[in-house]
């Protein structure tokens, strides 16, 4: 552990270089954290919409129970349907009453006869929504079909775009931070050239010389990632009340503590890899 003392001395004696290395790592992990939040949040929103009935088919008043059962069998036989729920007229009235419980005027006007019975259907895959919808429209007992294809497909498109931009940006920033750190550590090695020569002449092994620089890279990585995570988590916690009101009814927030701590763990691991890789690049380049 003696090399840690040397690492500490190196950090104290060139604080601006250390700060630059920590800042670039902070920026990288801040961006990584934000994109992880965005991707995780949008995935949860999609899951929420996917778990909701995606197609609702309203039956004509003259539809018999046999016709409805027959349609259900036909739909299940396609293997494109993950769930079908029959909502009777009475159930529809209950839902209506629940949704409008604060408006007695609306409640007085509606009875179960007015409301149609319906199927609430979830598809196995979003791509099957069209064919399920077509099948329902062709049925003689169905009066109307509505489905949320647009909401889910738009969200999916956006999430995929965010994911791709995120991965691209994270990759770019990771490369930039690794090379900047390698340059900073390389500069430090160049500054210490005479000291390193002295150490070698008095019998220092290659690892005795390398280890403090590798520990330095590790330090920059870990400190940068922890700061980046702290800022991103702080912003998320601060924005949670606003986001919750914006995403009313969609259970995305508050973020789970376990999830946030897992992210911290993964980021520290990634930072360690970045730090050690960049130190190795510098050490191999400048300490031949």
């Amino acid at each position, binding site marked *: 552990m003696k090399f840690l003392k040397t690492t500490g001395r190196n950090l104290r004696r060139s604080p601006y270089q250390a700060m630059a290395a920590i800042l670039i790592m902070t920026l990288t992990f801040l961006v990584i954290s934000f994109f992880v939040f965005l991707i995780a949040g949008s995935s949860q929103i999609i899951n929420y919409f996917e778990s909701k009935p995606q197609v609702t088919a309203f039956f004509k008043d003259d539809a018999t129970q046999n016709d409805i059962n027959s349609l259900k069998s036909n739909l299940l036989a396609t293997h494109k349907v993950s769930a079908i729920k029959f909502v009777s007229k009475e159930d529809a009235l209950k839902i209506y009453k629940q949704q409008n419980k604060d408006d007695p005027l609306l409640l007085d006007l509606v009875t179960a006869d007015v409301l149609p019975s319906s199927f609430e259907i979830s598809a196995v895959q979003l791509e099957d929504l069209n064919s399920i919808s077509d099948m329902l429209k062709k049925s003689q007992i169905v009066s109307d079909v509505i489905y949320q294809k647009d909401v889910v497909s738009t969200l999916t498109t956006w999430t995929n775009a965010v994911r791709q931009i995120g991965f691209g940006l994270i990759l770019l920033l990771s490369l930039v931070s690794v090379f900047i750190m390698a340059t900073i550590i390389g500069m430090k090695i160049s500054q210490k050239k005479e*000291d390193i020569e002295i150490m070698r*002449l*008095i019998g220092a092994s290659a690892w005795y010389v390398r280890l403090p620089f590798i520990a330095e890279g590790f330090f920059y990585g870990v400190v940068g990632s922890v700061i980046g995570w702290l800022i991103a988590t702080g912003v998320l916690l601060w924005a949670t009340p606003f986001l919750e009101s914006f995403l009313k009814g969609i259970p995305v927030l508050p973020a789970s503590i376990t999830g946030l701590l897992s992210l911290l763990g993964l980021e520290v691991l990634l930072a360690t890899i970045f730090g050690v890789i960049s130190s190795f690049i510098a050490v191999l380049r400048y300490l031949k």
Partner: protein
Amino acid sequence: MILLNSVSKKFGNGTFALSDINIAVRRGEFVFLVGPTGSGKTTIFKLIIRDLLPSSGDVVVNSLELNKLPKGKVAAFRKKIGVIFQDLKLMFDRTVFENVYLPLDVAGIKSGEAIKTVNEVLSQVGLSEHKEKFPLQLSGGELQRVAVARALVLSPEIILADEPTGNLDPQTSLEIVKLLSQINEKGTTVIMATHNLDIVKNSGKRVIHINKGKIEKDEKAKEAEKEEKKDKKEEEKE
């Protein structure tokens, strides 16, 4: 035992730093290497610590053939040799104590033991009261003593002193030589390079004169050879 057998060293620009040098230094011997600047004294030291490899010939130190010594074993080999460099090679951002502590740290000696050893060596070279000072706060003679202390601290079998009295006044120079003699009396082999003949005069030690990369004169070499043969016979008897 240090042996340079028909050693030549040619540099990239074609100049010969050493030409067909033969030197044998016995264990526990004190040898002066005398010659003008650029005569090849430092090159000999660099060959002995394997900082350089000869262009031809063999360098053997304590039965190790340095030409064949794997790179991975060079660090361990160098720990057995204390070197006082011509330019001292002290770390100016470390205190006297830290400079002397470095070889012990490099050798992986435990902190408590290392601190005790450094204090003992600093006391031996008369620098105890300066141990917290930085090199820039010391005089030339004190800096030389720091370099001597660092070379001594691992109790090496061999000490190579490259112009340790350069730029020092005669009084301080004699003190450094006296210090090295005391170390030699305890059994350490000492080779000291110098161009100051006043120091060598009346020393009673073996003196190798070197000029333009060649040995001009090796005083007491014959006596040394006799001693060596005697040592060998004794070793064989044992």
